[in-house]
C-alpha cells in the first residue's frame, strides 16, 4: 500500500496515471459484478398525456363519465401495457410515431403495435376535440376541404358515411394523403393507424363501442353527428394542416416556361 502511494507522488507521468485508472476501473467492475449489469436498466418508457380540457368540458356531447373511463382506464391501460411490453423488448429509442411505423412491420404487426398505436390514437383523439367545437373551419383549411371534397357538406356527409360503413371497432380519419397530395376520409379497423401507411392524420374519431356506448348506446349516427357539429377542434386541425404542409406540397408546382 505504502509503495503505491509513493509511486503516485514521485511519478505523476501518464503511465502511472493510466495504471491508477485501470486499477480503479477494475475494482468498480468487481464491485458491480460485471459490466453488463449497468446496461440492463435502460428501457423505453412512454407516459400518459392529459386531454387539453377538463374531463367534463365536453358535456353534453361526451359525458364526464365516458371521458373519465375512456382516458383514465382504457388509454391508461394501453400506456401501461405498452411499457410492460417494452421492458423486455428490443425496440428502444423511438419516438411514439416511429415506434408505430416500426412495429407495424409492413402489415405483419409486432406485439407492441396494438398498444403503441392505441396510445397514439387516443392522444390524437383527445386533441382533435375541444369544448364548444364543431361548426365550420376557416381560411385555408376550409379552402382545402372545398377543393378536395367539393364542399364542406360533402366532406361532412362522407365522414358520417364512413363511420357507418365501418363494421366493428375502429377509427375514422381525415388524412392528408402524401402521394395524392389531397385530403381524404378513411376508416381503419381496430388499432390500425394511417401513420403506418405514411399518410398524415388530421382528425380522428374513435368508433370503438367504448367511446360512445355509455352516452349513445348503439346510436352511432348521433355520436358521429354530435362529434362533427359540436366537438371537432378546428384550431387543432389548422395547426396540424400547417405542420403537414411542411411535408406535403399542396400548391401547384410553378413550372417556368422557357
Amino acid at each position, binding site marked *: 500500500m505504502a509503495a503505491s502511494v509513493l509511486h503516485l507522488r514521485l511519478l505523476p507521468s501518464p503511465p502511472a496515471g493510466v495504471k491508477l485508472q485501470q486499477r480503479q476501473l477494475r475494482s468498480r467492475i468487481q464491485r458491480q459484478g460485471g459490466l453488463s449489469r449497468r446496461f440492463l436498466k435502460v428501457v423505453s418508457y412512454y407516459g400518459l398525456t392529459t386531454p387539453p380540457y377538463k374531463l367534463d368540458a365536453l358535456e353534453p356531447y361526451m359525458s364526464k363519465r365516458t371521458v373519465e373511463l375512456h382516458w383514465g382506464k382504457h388509454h391508461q391501460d394501453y400506456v401501461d401495457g405498452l411499457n410492460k411490453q417494452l421492458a423486455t423488448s428490443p425496440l428502444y429509442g423511438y419516438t411514439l410515431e416511429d415506434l408505430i411505423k416500426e412495429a407495424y412491420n409492413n402489415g405483419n404487426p409486432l406485439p407492441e403495435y396494438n398498444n403503441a398505436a392505441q396510445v397514439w390514437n387516443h392522444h390524437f383523439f383527445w386533441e382533435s376535440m375541444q369544448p364548444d367545437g364543431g361548426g365550420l373551419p376557416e381560411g385555408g383549411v376550409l379552402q382545402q376541404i372545398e377543393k378536395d371534397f367539393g364542399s364542406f357538406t360533402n366532406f361532412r356527409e362522407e365522414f358520417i358515411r364512413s363511420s357507418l360503413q365501418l363494421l366493428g371497432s375502429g377509427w375514422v380519419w381525415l388524412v392528408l394523403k402524401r402521394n395524392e397530395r389531397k385530403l381524404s376520409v378513411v376508416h381503419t379497423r381496430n388499432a390500425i393507424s394511417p401513420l403506418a401507411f405514411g399518410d398524415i392524420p388530421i382528425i380522428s374519431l374513435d368508433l370503438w*363501442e367504448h367511446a360512445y*356506448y355509455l352516452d349513445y348506446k*348503439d346510436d352511432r349516427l348521433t355520436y358521429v353527428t354530435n362529434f362533427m357539429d359540436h366537438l371537432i377542434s378546428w384550431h387543432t386541425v389548422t395547426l396540424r394542416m400547417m405542420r403537414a404542409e411542411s411535408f406535403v406540397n399542396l400548391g401547384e408546382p410553378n413550372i417556368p416556361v422557357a
Partner: protein
Amino acid sequence: MALRTLASKKALSFALGGAARPLAASARGVTTVTLPDLSYDFGALEPAISGEIMRLHHQKHHATYVANYNKALEQLDAAVAKRDASAVVQLQGAIKFNGGGHVNHSIFWKNLKPISEGGGESPHGKLGWAIDEDFGSFEALVKKMNAEGAALQGSGWVWLALDKEAKKLSVETTANQDPLVTKGASLVPLLGIDVWEHAYYLQYKNVRPDYLNNIWKVINWKYAGEVYENVLA
C-alpha cells in the same frame, strides 16, 4: 309469434302490390329472417348480465343485424337477377357482417339460461367427458376461453367449437361478426361468448375479464351437450 305472422303478411302484400314494379325480386319473394324470441325475460340473467344490456342487445343490436341482413338479401336478389356480378360481390361484406351477427346472436341466446332454470351447471355426459379429454378439466377450458376472450383485440367472439370430422373440441376466436365456419368448414359452435363491448360495457365497463368470469354462471351447458350429441350421433 304474432310478430312473425305480421311480417309474412307484409311480405305477401308487398309482393302482390309490387307486381307493377320493374324488379322481379319482389314478385318472387325473398326469404327473410326474423328476430328469434328469448326463452327467458331480459332481467332473468341478473346479476351476471343486466336486464338493460339484454334488452338493448336483443331489441337493438340483434334486431339491426336482422333488418340489415334482410335488406342485403333483397339487394342480392336484385343484383343476381340483373346479373350484376360486381354488385353481388360488393354485398358480401354486408351479408357476412349482418348475417353473421344474426347467426351468432341466435346461438348466443340459446347458450344462456337463468340460474333458476339450470344456467351455470357444469356439463355432464358425453360433452363433459370430451371436455376432460381435450382440455384436461372443465376449469382448464374455462380458463382458456377467458384468456382468449380477454386477449381478443377489438370486437369478436370466443367459441367452444366441435370439429365434426376430427371429433375434437377446440377453443376458437372470430373477429367482428364472422361466424365460426370462417375458421374451419367442419367446425360446429357449441358455445359462443360475445366479447363485443356492447355485450358488457354498461355493466362491467372496461373490465372484460370480470364479464367473462361471471358469464359462466348463466351458461346453458345442456344446450351445448345436446348439440354435441346430435352432431356426433
